[in-house]
């Protein structure tokens, strides 16, 4: 699961990535930086490391350093090295509270490659638990910082105390413009139900956070 927090946990929603993308009025987002240990890095995808510009090596090093911070529980340090949109969107205290609540440290992450995505962005590929994931590093104010995988933020009702978690929902490959998280319902719905219940029990008892899920059907996305 890919998750993140805005706020100060009492209530949680759990929903699919695409919904978040289309609901800018609903708060939150996902700075989904997996916790774990970066145990090594090559500097390129499909090219010799000596050909990689030095700045890309710096991006890899920054990504690895952030992974190390996650693994050691230095979430405040992670917050300081997230992109500005994160730091503007959530306080360091709330960021730390969320990750202390929902992140498990120790997952092994191998930074496996990088490529320049734009003049000020680099795509870093990571191997996490046997699967490939990617993170975008941004060059801000002379430093490589990590961009959240998703970030939608609106100022919520100040009385709300909620956390939203974005599930990495399954999506059939051909469904490009339309997303069908309810398909196949036979496997997806039970997963969401189980996840919502598990998290409600874990977070509810420990942190007083409520967790609920939305299982959407077909809807048009961009």
């Amino acid at each position: 699961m890919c998750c993140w927090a805005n706020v100060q946990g009492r209530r949680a929603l759990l929903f699919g990535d695409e919904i978040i993308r289309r609901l800018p009025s609903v708060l939150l987002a996902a700075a989904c930086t997996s916790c774990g240990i970066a145990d090594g890095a090559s500097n390129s995808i499909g090219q010799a490391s000596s050909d990689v510009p030095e700045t890309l090596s710096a991006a890899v090093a920054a990504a690895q350093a952030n992974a190390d911070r996650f693994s050691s529980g230095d979430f405040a340090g992670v917050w300081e090295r997230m992109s500005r949109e994160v730091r503007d969107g959530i306080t360091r205290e709330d960021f730390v509270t969320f990750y202390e609540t929902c992140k498990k440290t120790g997952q092994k992450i191998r930074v496996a490659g990088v490529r320049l995505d734009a003049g000020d962005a680099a795509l870093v590929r990571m191997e996490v638990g046997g699967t490939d994931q990617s993170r975008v590093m941004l060059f801000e104010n002379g430093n490589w910082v990590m961009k959240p995988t998703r970030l939608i933020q609106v100022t919520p009702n100040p009385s709300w105390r909620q956390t939203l978690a974005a599930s990495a929902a399954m999506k059939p490959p051909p469904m490009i413009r339309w997303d069908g998280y309810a398909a196949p319902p036979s496997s997806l719905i039970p997963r969401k139900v189980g996840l919502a219940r598990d998290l409600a029990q874990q977070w509810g008892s420990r942190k007083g956070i409520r967790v609920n899920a939305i299982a959407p059907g077909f809807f048009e996305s961009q």
Partner: protein
Amino acid sequence: MTDAQRPDYIESLKPRVLLGRGADPAELAAPLGWLASDGGSFVTGQTIVVDGGVTIT
């Protein structure tokens, strides 16, 4: 899938939806908003299915 194929694929999905259409994102926002509001303050560990009836057909 090509752009030309996509409309056919979307049409093929509609019979699976009891209401016969896909959702507008705003139709997902309403239950989300309720869960996040004070009205949903005593709801936890639940999954609300907003799928136009896909899972009951």
